């Protein structure tokens, strides 16, 4: 794949967008300027035309009296005076035959103009001369030669009238309609200069605006498009290289921001999936390792066990020897069970339960780690209940649990020593707050257990909740009688709540029941083979009922507490510690220890809880049922 920086400058989306927008701007501003210039020019010319017409009319009127009296010198004088104005190129009066009678340019006087001359053309374009000329046709713009300035000529026909044929000089016959033409030419040099100025100004404005437009658009495109795209490309490249921790910082709120956010979500999911893959890979490797270890270790163990068990048989007369050999046989058998446990771990076997003395098992576990306790300068305090009844459990598995927890406590204590307290006691508890709901279903047999959201390390019970137009999920605490529920929506305790199965949407509200404490609705969830759990659905109070369990009354448990005064576990990790492969020990741990502990206790229908305070230490409490 090409690197982002290898994409040619001309191929970049930002540049393309900038160019596209600039071209649009050029077209719009160009067209606007064109019409603007055109209309300005038209307005100016119209103004000049009006001015010229007025001038022509003024000349005509001011010479009228002179003409009637035929005072030619006087007329000459007027025309010359007017013609002195620099804006006026010339003023001419032509008679009907086309002879120039008066002109500001005296050398022209007496010349005959051809009818095709531009000053005559307006009327004489067709063979029959026009007698009336509309005002708009009287003007013409022309150049004397291609290099000269433009001129505007205005023809003003002098019509015959009564005073003309009745004048004393009696120069004109009554039938003639047009007596001559007054032709005024005005120089357009100033106007043209003005127009050119305007054009230059307009062009400058257009260039400046287009440039500004391009720069501004370019800036925002860079900021809104180029930068986020660059960030996205960088992130995808990072992910391609295997860095799943790379997240887009501040993705923003627009569509690209949304894309960035969904990219981040995707990466999180990807990370989770990869994590799981790695986990199952770890699991598979562990299985292979276990098989290999089992096979390799069991062969030498066979030698140890057969010979020692044979010697034990032979040593019947020697009690001292027998005792020693017994240790070898017993411990080899234990090794056998450990290896078996290793194999079983991958296969989640059921515990081999016998009647065991918990205190004795703890002592055995302590004996294994005695050296580590000494090494770590750790003071171990035993607070055993010596009258503890035996419980039904797998001795090896339970020993493994204690071993794991003591080793964790030693690790938590660090190098400066510490105190580990192990206490055992017999407690009587109501099933509430102890009994773990591991399976529960809706009336259509859909499992409601949600393994993703955990409460106290246990998979929660997920229900769909509808309340006050809000809809979402509620995660119920799976420990019967505990109420650490999690509401996925803003939820106000109210009696109109709906609780449904997330799969089939079937209502889980029992319409025939009312909460005995608040009178509100009651949810009813089936526990396969163990009746129903009911509870207050408006969550106004903590009423819960499970006849199957309540009927059994209070139960006796052996409680084992293992406490250290070490570093503690951060609150954010407390919920994760029992998950397989969760480890804070880096390379030193497999992350399996506590998950195995949890699995073993769970297999014994017991519970394990952890309480921890940073800096003050951690206490694990295990409750194992007596029967």
């Amino acid at each position, binding site marked *: 794949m090409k690197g982002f920086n290898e994409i040619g400058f001309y191929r970049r989306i930002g540049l393309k967008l900038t160019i596209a927008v600039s071209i649009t701007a050029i077209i719009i501003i160009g067209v606007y300027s064109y019409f603007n210039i055109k209309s300005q020019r038209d307005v100016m010319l119209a103004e000049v035309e009006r001015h010229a017409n007025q001038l022509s009319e003024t000349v005509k009127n001011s010479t009228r009296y002179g003409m009637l009296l035929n005072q030619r010198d006087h007329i000459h004088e007027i025309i010359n005076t007017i013609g002195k104005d620099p804006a006026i190129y010339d003023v001419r009066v032509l008679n009907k035959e086309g002879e120039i009678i008066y002109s500001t340019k005296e050398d022209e006087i007496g010349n005959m103009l051809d009818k095709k001359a531009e000053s005559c053309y307006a009327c004489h374009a067709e063979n029959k001369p026009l007698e009336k000329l509309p005002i708009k046709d009287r003007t013409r713009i022309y150049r004397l030669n291609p290099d000269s300035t433009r001129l505007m000529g205005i023809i003003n026909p002098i019509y015959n009238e009564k005073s003309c044929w009745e004048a004393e000089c009696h120069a004109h016959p009554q039938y003639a309609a047009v007596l001559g033409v007054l032709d005024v030419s005005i120089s357009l040099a100033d106007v043209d200069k003005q127009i050119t100025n305007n054009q230059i100004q307009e062009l400058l404005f257009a260039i400046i605006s287009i440039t500004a437009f391009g720069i501004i658009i370019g800036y925002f495109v860079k900021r809104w498009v180029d930068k986020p795209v660059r960030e996205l490309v960088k992130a995808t490249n990072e992910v391609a290289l295997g860095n799943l921790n790379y997240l887009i910082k501040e993705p923003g709120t627009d569509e690209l921001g949304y894309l960035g956010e969904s990219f981040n979500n995707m990466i999180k999911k990807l990370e989770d999936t990869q994590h799981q893959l790695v986990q199952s890979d770890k699991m598979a490797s562990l299985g292979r390792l276990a*098989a290999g270890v*089992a*096979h*390799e*270790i*069991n*062969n*030498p*163990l*066979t*030698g*140890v*066990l*057969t*010979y020692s*068990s*044979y010697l*034990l*048989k032979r040593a019947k007369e020697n009690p001292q020897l027998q005792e020693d050999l017994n240790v070898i*046989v017993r411990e*080899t*058998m234990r090794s*056998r069970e450990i290896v*078996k446990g290793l*194999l079983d771990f991958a*296969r989640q*076997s*059921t515990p081999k*339960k016998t009647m065991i003395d918990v205190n004795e098992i703890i002592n055995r576990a302590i004996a294994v780690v005695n050296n580590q306790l000494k090494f770590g300068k750790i003071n171990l305090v035993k607070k055993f209940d010596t009258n503890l009844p035996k419980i*039904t459990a797998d001795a090896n598995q339970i020993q493994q649990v204690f071993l794991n927890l003591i080793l964790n406590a030693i690790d938590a204590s660090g190098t400066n020593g510490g105190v580990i307290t192990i206490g055992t006691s017999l407690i009587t508890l109501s099933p509430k707050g102890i009994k773990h709901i591991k399976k529960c279903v809706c009336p259509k047999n859909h499992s409601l257990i949600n393994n993703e959201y955990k409460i106290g390390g246990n998979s929660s019970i997920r229900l769909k909740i509808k309340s006050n137009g809000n809809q979402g999920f509620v995660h119920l605490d799976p420990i019967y009688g505990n109420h650490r529920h999690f509401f996925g929506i803003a939820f106000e305790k109210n009696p109109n709540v709906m609780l449904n199965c997330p799969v089939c949407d079937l209502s889980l509200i029992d319409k025939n029941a009312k909460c005995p404490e608040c009178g509100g609705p009651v949810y009813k969830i089936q526990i396969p083979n163990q009746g129903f759990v009911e509870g207050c659905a408006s969550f106004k109070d903590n009423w819960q009922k499970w006849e199957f369990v309540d009927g059994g009354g209070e139960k006796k448990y052996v409680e084992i507490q293992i406490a250290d005064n070490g570093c503690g576990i951060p609150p954010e990790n407390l919920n994760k510690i029992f998950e397989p492969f969760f480890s804070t020990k880096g390379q030193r741990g497999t992350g399996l220890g506590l998950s195995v502990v949890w699995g073993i206790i769970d297999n014994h229908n017991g519970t394990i809880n952890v309480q921890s305070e940073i800096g003050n230490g951690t206490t694990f409490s295990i409750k194992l049922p007596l029967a």
Partner: protein
Amino acid sequence: MNKQCEILIIDDEQVVVDSVIKIGEISGYKVDYTMDAKTALEKISGQNYQLIICDIMLPEMDGFQFISEMQSRRNNTPIVITTGYSTMENAVKSLQLGAIDFIPKPFTFDEMTSIMKRGVKYKKLVDADTEKTGSLFYVQCPPRYFCLGYSCWLNTDYDGTVLIGATDLFLKTIENMKTIELMERDEAINQALTAAKIICEDESVHQLYSAISGRIIDRNEKLLNDISLLEKDPYFNGWLYRIIPGEYDYEIKLLASCSSNGCR
């Protein structure tokens, strides 16, 4: 003791071979050995072994292939499978293929001795039966019963629970039974793993497998007082446990049906 009995141990691990030879010697069996199954097949054609103890993971030909090869050669020498990789699956597979026993490594002196005793006795019974009837030997269990290997049976009751017990052939391989140790109610048992221990007059302990996995809901308390019931009526009054099976549909497929061609 009977020095004519001969046992063949096939294992690629010297210490295991040594251990079995030692146990054999002390128990009065002459033990031969090979380190691989190919050589074992050669040895077998020349000699009449009473029992073959075979590892699963062997070079070239593994234990399972060895059982199949022996069957295709119509050799009825009983085979006991032993392995360091002692999973339930391996145990079931061994018994299903026709091994008479499965003994996980490491084993104790007594565990191996009882296996040897039963194996040799089994061979005698089979030989005697074949001589008498001239036909293929099989376990005579009632119709609709299922067997795992030759030792344990199960009978599915109408309510879905399952009765399990020991076959008459298994009981015949054990001499002078004294007591039986049963598991407790509510305990879980696994297919092809120990379900009961029969202790004989000579203090030898014989482990009986369960034909299926599940949870024990009842056990035959009468057996604890009177073990002779087991021998007298192994298929009816001599039942061991009533259990709720865990994975009936899967596990029943691994068993042999008595109604078809008998359990062998």
